């Protein structure tokens, strides 16, 4: 049953897995049921909390819900990209159709609130690893070219699957073991910015975001990022994801973000 909390538009929903498709050696596209009577969610970087383990927890099992960017939202389903990196993402990666999953969302602010004119310009999207998470919904809503970087071949998602929604993308692999350019994804991104200036939306590890923030500053283009920090609640109460702004003061990634003006924060503080 879905409970809609009207003031915030948040929904708590005991959902069901529709499909869990392996799209890379350690990456899964999890599709869950989402009530058709609700308005489709405008994702654009917003996220949701997922939980597929009991409350109260098993003695040594995972406890908190986990936050994931909404990969894609349709009238009756939601998709999340799960990178299997630990015990809780292993549970989510192993879910199969008809298993239950708790959903709480949508949470946070999307690109539309941080950059209202987002549709008026073409974009470069830069995803590092699991930073592909929010990209499908972004790609769907604006004109953009995707730059996708991974450290090694072992992490790369299927190029066919990626092109099925990203179209003509640019790939880079740090150690040259996989498809795409050898080296960090910031290389081809910087080249593209030299040829044509466009705002950049990025999601990935803190050091990648730091590098892209430097490139964008030099190219004098807007830089928007979907930031990540370990979250306890995703609702603005626990302050686990509260980080300093360059201009003083603090922001909570969960409710002032996750989409933030990339020039406003020091991504090094997230490492």
């Amino acid at each position, binding site marked *: 049953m879905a409970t809609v*909390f*009207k*003031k*915030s538009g*948040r929904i*708590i929903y005991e959902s069901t897995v529709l499909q869990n498709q392996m799209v890379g050696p350690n990456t899964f596209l999890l599709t869950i049921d989402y009530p058709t009577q609700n308005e489709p969610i405008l994702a654009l970087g917003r996220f949701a909390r997922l*939980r597929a383990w009991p*409350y*109260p*927890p*098993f*003695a*040594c*099992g*995972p*406890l*908190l*819900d986990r936050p994931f960017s909404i990969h894609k939202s349709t009238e009756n389903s939601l998709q999340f990209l799960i990178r299997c990196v630990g015990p809780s993402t292993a549970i989510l990666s192993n879910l199969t159709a008809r298993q239950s999953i708790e959903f709480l969302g949508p949470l946070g602010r999307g690109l539309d609130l941080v950059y209202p004119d987002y549709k008026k310009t073409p974009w470069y999207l830069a995803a590092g690893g699991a930073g592909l998470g929010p990209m499908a919904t972004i790609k769907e809503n604006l004109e953009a070219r995707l730059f996708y970087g991974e450290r090694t071949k072992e992490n790369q998602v299927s190029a066919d699957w990626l092109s099925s929604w990203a179209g003509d993308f640019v790939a880079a692999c740090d150690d040259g073991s996989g498809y795409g350019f050898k080296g960090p994804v910031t290389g081809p991104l910087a080249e593209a910015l030299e040829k044509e200036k466009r705002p950049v939306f990025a999601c990935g590890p803190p050091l990648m975001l730091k590098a892209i923030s430097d490139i964008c500053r030099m190219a004098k283009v807007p830089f928007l990022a979907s930031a990540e*920090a*370990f*979250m*306890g*609640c995703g*609702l*603005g*109460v*626990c*302050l*686990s*994801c*509260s*980080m*300093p702004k360059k201009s003083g003061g*603090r922001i909570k990634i969960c409710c002032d973000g996750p989409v933030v003006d990339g020039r406003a924060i020091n991504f090094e*503080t*997230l490492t």
Partner: protein
Amino acid sequence: MTQEKTPDLTVKIGPLVLKNPVIAASGTFGYGLELSDFVPPESLGAVIVKGLSLEPWPGNPLPRLVESSGGLINAIGLENMGVEEFIKNHLDKIKATGATVGANIIGRTVEEYAQVAKCLAKTPIDFLELNVSCPNLSTPGGLSFGSDPEICFKLTSMAVSAASGLPVFVKLPPLVTDITILAKKVEEAGATAISLINTIPAMSVDIINKRPTLAHVTGGLSGPPIKPIALRLVMLCAQAVNIPILGLGGVFTYQDALEFILVGASAVQMGTAVLIDPLSPLKVIEGLSNYLKSQKISSISLLKGQIQTA
């Protein structure tokens, strides 16, 4: 036909009458309204807001939170907006809901606690909770204020006098040789009630980077793993003092709440559970009510301290 009577969930904590024994613990309910969409604050026995200091505090660097075997270790570091900002822009809004509101207060010195208490004394706040036991806050000697019975006595006395009649709860640390010495000291110093327990000092190790997982190195463990420790300490204190005890540490279900009440707590606080299921306090209230009905017990307070240890 006899009408089934609704069980009485009200509890008395000194001069306060709470509508039920479920209180939102400090640090997991923001400044009172962030979760109001899920949990109307007025539906709880009380809410205790994030620890307030004289000036705003920035808290610790990230990462501040990590999971550990069914629990959480946090080193938020008491980030807060400061007592003045809370009084100016938040207190009236949360009080307008009709909720019973407590302010958790913190300081770097005994005098700072008293100053924060004084600021709040003139406001519509319902009670204070002195946080003398946060693992993320310590004296220059490295101990939490609450670990030293004499400092604890002095701090409580000063705060009670600065609070000009407001009820003062004292949240004690779990890691002390004899908790009853501290409990008796704060009772003697005029505390209205004791909150037990705060998080337990703990740490987690990142074996890949060979570093502590938390930037602050250590933090405080909360959640289900600490419940058995909390229950014992609540029982010991309930036998040692006459003032009410608010039990906390891993309360996730109404059964957990009953355990605390049976060992002598007058009410419970919920923290970690709220982060996972924001509706959990409401479920615990409903669970307690249904339990009392099914057991034909007219009032929750009849269960307080009813554990048979002999």
